[in-house]
């Protein structure tokens, strides 16, 4: 009986190992320190923090490959225990995002990944996450969308459900970029990006900011894609129109006090306007954007690393 169990386990291990190597995926070792990187750009999942099982890594690798191929960009997921920085004691807050940014962009550059790509870092070292985009991925996913992605993946990360967080990341990117790939306005932007030979997103924005803005922003008519809303508006307008039809022909009283006032008879015999007191109320104006989602936000920014243009943002637990 025991022999049988060992036999089955051995077979399963063989299957996993065979599958892993057959897919071109190699589980990594080490804590993720940049000094120890050995990056192969056909591999899209690097779990240095060992927070995923081999099966999970394999599944993510497969998802990154298929979705990345479909969208025309590399999708990379990295977990790390060591960003290669020793933060000064008590001064970690606010610095960790710059460490993550530096780490993740260097990783992408050193891995020599595709011109367009998006990379997700689960930073176990300083306990937070970071997402950076480069190339056309910056056109398809702007800073606002980056924040939405962070919101989506933060939930799984916060609950220590790392596979859930990573899968959500890939699915959200697929939905977000996939929808826009079918949008003629984004097609035009992609054409502009390619024709202009852009690398720097800020430069692209400077030239085509109006077009980019129009493409990113929901137009006034976007809301009318909701048929229920259209019907509510239609019903309200129809009701108002019918009420106007029913009541517009009602006669109005056109005689007023001036109709019967005798000319020159109106006299103000006495008048006073006496100030009595002043009351004052105060109201605070909230100018800060606030934070939420259980994490502190680092905001989004554009930057260059390894001669390439990136945009990104992150948050900490």
């Amino acid at each position, binding site marked *: 009986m025991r022999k049988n169990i060992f036999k089955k386990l051995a077979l399963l291990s063989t299957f996993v190992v065979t599958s892993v190597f057959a897919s071109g995926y190699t589980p990594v070792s080490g804590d993720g320190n940049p000094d120890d990187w050995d990056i192969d750009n056909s591999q899209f999942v690097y779990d240095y923090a060992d927070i995923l099982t081999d099966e999970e890594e394999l599944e993510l690798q497969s998802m990154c490959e298929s979705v990345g191929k479909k969208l025309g960009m590399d999708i990379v997921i990295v977990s790390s225990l060591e960003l290669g920085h020793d933060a000064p004691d008590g001064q970690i807050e606010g610095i960790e995002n710059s460490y993550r940014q530096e780490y993740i962009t260097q990783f992408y550059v050193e891995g020599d990944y595709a011109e367009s790509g998006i990379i997700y870092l689960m930073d176990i070292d300083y306990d937070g996450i970071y997402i950076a985009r480069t190339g056309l991925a910056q056109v398809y996913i702007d800073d606002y969308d980056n924040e939405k992605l962070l919101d989506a993946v933060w939930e799984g990360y916060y609950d220590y459900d790392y596979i859930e967080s990573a899968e959500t990341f890939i699915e959200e990117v697929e939905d977000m970029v996939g929808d826009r790939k079918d949008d003629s306005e984004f097609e035009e932007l992609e054409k502009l990006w390619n024709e202009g030979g852009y690398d720097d997103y800020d430069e692209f924005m400077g030239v085509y900011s109006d077009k980019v803005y129009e493409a990113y922003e*929901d*137009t*006034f*008519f*976007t*809301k*009318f*894609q*909701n*048929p229920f*809303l*259209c*019907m509510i*508006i*239609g*019903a309200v*307008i*129809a*009701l108002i*129109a*019918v009420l106007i*039809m*029913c009541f517009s*022909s*009602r*006669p*109005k*009283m*056109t*005689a*007023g*006090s001036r*109709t*019967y*006032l*005798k000319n020159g*008879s*109106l*006299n*103000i*015999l*006495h*008048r*006073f*306007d*006496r*100030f*009595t*007191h*002043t*009351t*004052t*109320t*105060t*109201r*605070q*104006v*909230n*100018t800060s954007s606030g934070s939420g989602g259980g994490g502190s936000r680092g905001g989004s920014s554009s930057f260059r690393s390894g001669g390439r243009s990136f945009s990104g943002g992150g948050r900490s637990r």
Partner: protein
Amino acid sequence: MAETYKCPSCGAPIEFDGATGKMVCQYCETEVDVSAMDKIHDIYDESVVDETESEKEYCSFDGYRCDSCGAEIVTDENTSATFCSFCGSPTMIRGRLEGALKPQKVIPFRIQKDQAVAAYKKWAGKGLVTPSGFRKQSTIEKITGIYVPFWLYDYGSDAHVSAHATKRRTDRRGNTIYEHTDHFQVGRHIRADFEKIPADASEKMDDRTMDLLEPYNYSDLTDFQMPYLSGYQSEKFSYDSNELAKRAENRVREYILNEARQTITGYSSVSITSANVKLNRNKASYTLMPVWILNYKYKGKTHTFAMNGQTGKVVGKLPKSFGKIAAWFGGIFAGVSGLLMLLGGLLG
């Protein structure tokens, strides 16, 4: 006594013509001034009873003999001018237009029957939810010109008004906005005279409808003469000036307070805290005002079309077709919803 004005040329009944302001014979087109009519009028004093003596105050219907054909004319107690239902001659009941019942003033008709009919047709045609059958209904010939009895009141008024008023201003220091409200005690003592405030004195006429027909142009107001009534119906007052004074006083009170309120300006908000109004009635004149009126039934419900016989202002409520309302609602709903969905699909 029932009287009919006769044409001095051909002896046919002669009527007041609003367009010319004269008495015009419909048969030989003779025109006679209103003021001259009484002098040349040949009065036939045939009557069933001596109305001035025996007019029964509490009797609902009285009988008179037509001046032209001798048929009996039956009227209710308030009618002072009507038509003979047999020969159509305009007939006036002198006993209801003399003494205390004699109107002091009258505004003669300016709008002719054909103009009133045209106005009615235009009015009936403009309702988008008016039943189609209603427009085809041929009741328009029943439109009637009536001199409606009114009391015109002159009032002096004196008002003391107190109010609480506020002015708001805002300033900002840092992230704090300060909203300051300055409070004021305001007082006004004003005096004004109001002239010829009308109140209809006919029991049959709807007060609201008569109010909506205002204003009349008082430049046409003239001393009453009976020939003005020839060719129209007329009523004597159902309520005397004291009985209707309350209605006029309510209006004067509202008017003087409105005038006082309009002198309180420059504030963000004003609320009247107390008002003391004193009214002094100076005069009440019994006056006849011209109104074209048509009462008609549509699907068992009575509707009224009324028109100011001097200015042409129209008052009335058109019947509504629920089928048409539903059709309009459905059409607009489908059209707007479809258009929005289309725009959402194309431009969203």
